[in-house]
């Protein structure tokens, strides 16, 4: 048998109709995750055409982007401030009720950022195809699932037919070897990978992350890496499932149970790239040489390792980014004064992210004049963090402990960075205006975010680790 890649194996298993020169493949979708922002227009099309949701059992909805993180607004004790956001929430509730789609709504203890709750519930499983009208669907690739973001028209396709028209992507192997140094996290690793590939280096490709460093990562760390695959332009990120994956999934409410579990694990063990399988391109990274990373520009590829200066010169786009960011070419990021910190998002809003940040915040105070927003990725994470006393650590330090949601990653719900303010953010995008008009985003790891919160500056988190 020909040696095949993990991507190829999942692809073939989901071909309803194979691609030809004239027609794309019809690809079956095992799990369709949905949220309030990218579905309303798809439901409108279903209504106009008299269509139903073909597989409600393979469709799950939640509310995350437009929802307030303020408890009073979220739970209806006061009205949601942004009327259009409130309307969008009501629209999803109505659509789900009408079409019979399960909604993990406002009062569900399982509500959260869509890419956090899929894994948390055990719905994200190796070898499956997963889509969502959201580019960070690549997160689920950490489990060896082929998972990618789609537009609203395609959301409609999946709702109506459980299928998508797709051309097969290329494969790009990113091999990572060596131990991550102390204080260097999965976030730093993926920022280094994006810098190496460039923000369009992955276009047209599915990235498979391989190597001893990747194998040594926890599931939460793997999700951070796969989450940002799209920031290198890739369709999806993939990591072959292993014992770490199975241990994470075992016993989760919607993972296979009993005899079904053993059968599933046996099947999942075959989901590897065979030795000698050809990939279209390959790059290698030595993790042992990495340092904590932070972005300085207006795309996630514009980053430096701490201690490294911002480039001294660049093209017109570089100059525009510098002007927007208010930074000086050639300067160091260390010591840069900051006004806001956001800890959360589908990139770094999981329990281990909060724990790591708390390890730096514990016993310290948020620096004067700094606003520190801590937003758990799901209500389950919020509950677990509160059970572990992490909320107290953050609140005692002067941070703002919020309800789950996408929040300040994109500010749709009104959680915004002030114009001109610098925000160290654990999210995934530092685009102009992403966190608010004129907001200046510095992407970094949870420990660097925590270090910035307690010092009011970009600070090497390694100097604050116990």
């Amino acid at each position: 048998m020909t040696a095949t890649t993990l991507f190829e194996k999942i692809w073939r298993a989901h071909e309803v109709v194979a691609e030809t020169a004239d027609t794309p493949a019809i690809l079956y979708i095992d799990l369709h995750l949905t949220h309030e922002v990218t579905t309303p227009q798809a439901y409108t099309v279903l209504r106009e055409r008299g269509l139903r949701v073909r597989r409600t059992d393979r469709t799950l909805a939640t509310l995350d982007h437009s929802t307030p993180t303020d408890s009073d607004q979220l739970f209806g004790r006061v009205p949601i401030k942004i009327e259009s956001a409130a309307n969008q929430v009501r629209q999803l509730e109505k659509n789900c009720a009408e079409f019979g789609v399960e909604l993990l709504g406002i009062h569900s203890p399982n509500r959260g950022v869509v890419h956090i709750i899929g894994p948390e519930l055990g719905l994200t499983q190796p070898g499956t195809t997963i889509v969502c009208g959201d580019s960070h669907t690549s997160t689920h690739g950490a489990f060896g699932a082929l998972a990618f973001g789609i537009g609203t028209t395609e959301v409609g396709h999946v709702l109506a037919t459980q299928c998508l028209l797709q051309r097969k992507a290329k494969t790009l192997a990113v091999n990572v070897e060596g131990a991550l140094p102390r204080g260097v996290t999965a976030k730093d690793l993926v920022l280094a990978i994006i810098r190496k590939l460039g923000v369009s280096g992955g276009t047209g490709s599915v990235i498979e992350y391989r190597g001893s460093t990747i194998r040594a990562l926890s599931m939460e760390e793997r999700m951070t890496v796969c989450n940002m695959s799209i920031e290198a332009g890739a369709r999806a990120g993939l990591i072959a499932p292993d014992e770490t994956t199975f241990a994470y999934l075992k016993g989760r409410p919607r993972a296979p149970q009993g005899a079904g579990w053993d059968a599933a694990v046996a099947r999942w063990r075959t989901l590897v790239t065979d030795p000698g399988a050809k990939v279209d391109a390959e790059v290698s990274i030595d993790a042992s040489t990495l340092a904590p990373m932070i972005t300085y520009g207006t795309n996630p590829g514009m980053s430096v390792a701490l201690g490294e200066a911002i480039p001294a010169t660049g093209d017109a786009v570089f100059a525009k980014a510098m002007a927007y960011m208010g930074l000086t070419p050639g300067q160091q990021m260390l010591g840069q004064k900051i006004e806001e910190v956001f800890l959360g998002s589908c990139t770094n809003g999981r329990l281990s992210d909060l724990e790591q940040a708390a390890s730096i915040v514990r016993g310290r105070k948020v620096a004067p004049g700094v606003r520190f927003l801590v937003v758990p990725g799901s209500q389950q994470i919020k509950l677990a963090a509160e059970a572990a006393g992490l909320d107290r650590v953050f609140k005692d330090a002067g941070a703002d402990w919020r309800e789950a949601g996408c929040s300040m990653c994109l500010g749709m719900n009104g959680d915004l960075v002030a114009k001109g303010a610098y925000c160290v953010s654990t999210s995934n995008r530092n685009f102009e205006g992403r966190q608010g008009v004129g907001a200046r985003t510095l992407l970094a790891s949870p420990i660097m975010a925590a270090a910035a919160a307690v010092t009011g500056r970009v600070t090497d988190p390694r100097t604050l680790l116990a």
Partner: protein
Amino acid sequence: MEPIRTIRSRTVVLASTNIDTDQIMPARFLTTTSREGLGKHLFADWRYDAAGQPIAEFVLNKPEAAGCSVLVAGRNIGCGSSREHAPWGLYDYGFRAVISSEIADIFRSNSLKNGLVPVVVDADTHAWLLANPGVEVAVDLETRTVTLPDGRSVAFPIEAFARYCLLNGVDETGYLLSQEAAIKAYEARTGA
């Protein structure tokens, strides 16, 4: 959908590289539940000042941009968020084609489904178009070429089925629905 064959227009040039969909359609406009009327928010943070007044220097606010339906953009337009609101906004504003040397995957896919033709040209042609804003071009889907003012035709790739759908005004939803028997057979075969 209206069949599309040829788009003839002067070009509008936005030379920035990596124009992400957050620039094309900022997130605060995504709370809409309709796909209509997004053209007024297109490039909102580059186009309007804090008081909501047009910024005169921005290319879409210049008189020569009026009526143009071809946008020439720097390398890698459409990166970032999957929001289809970006091509909806471009289309609603009046654009029918976007030309660049690289176009991000999800944005390209979304554009094809909305009558906005994504045109990837070679680096030399791209550099020339960036340097010569306002030239008259013709994007021809039948021949898969862009014709430049000097009469030269440059080929561009486009996925065969998407091209067929654009040329014939066919929508992909209908095609997928017509595959119900194959989908049922797949589900029966795999136990899905």
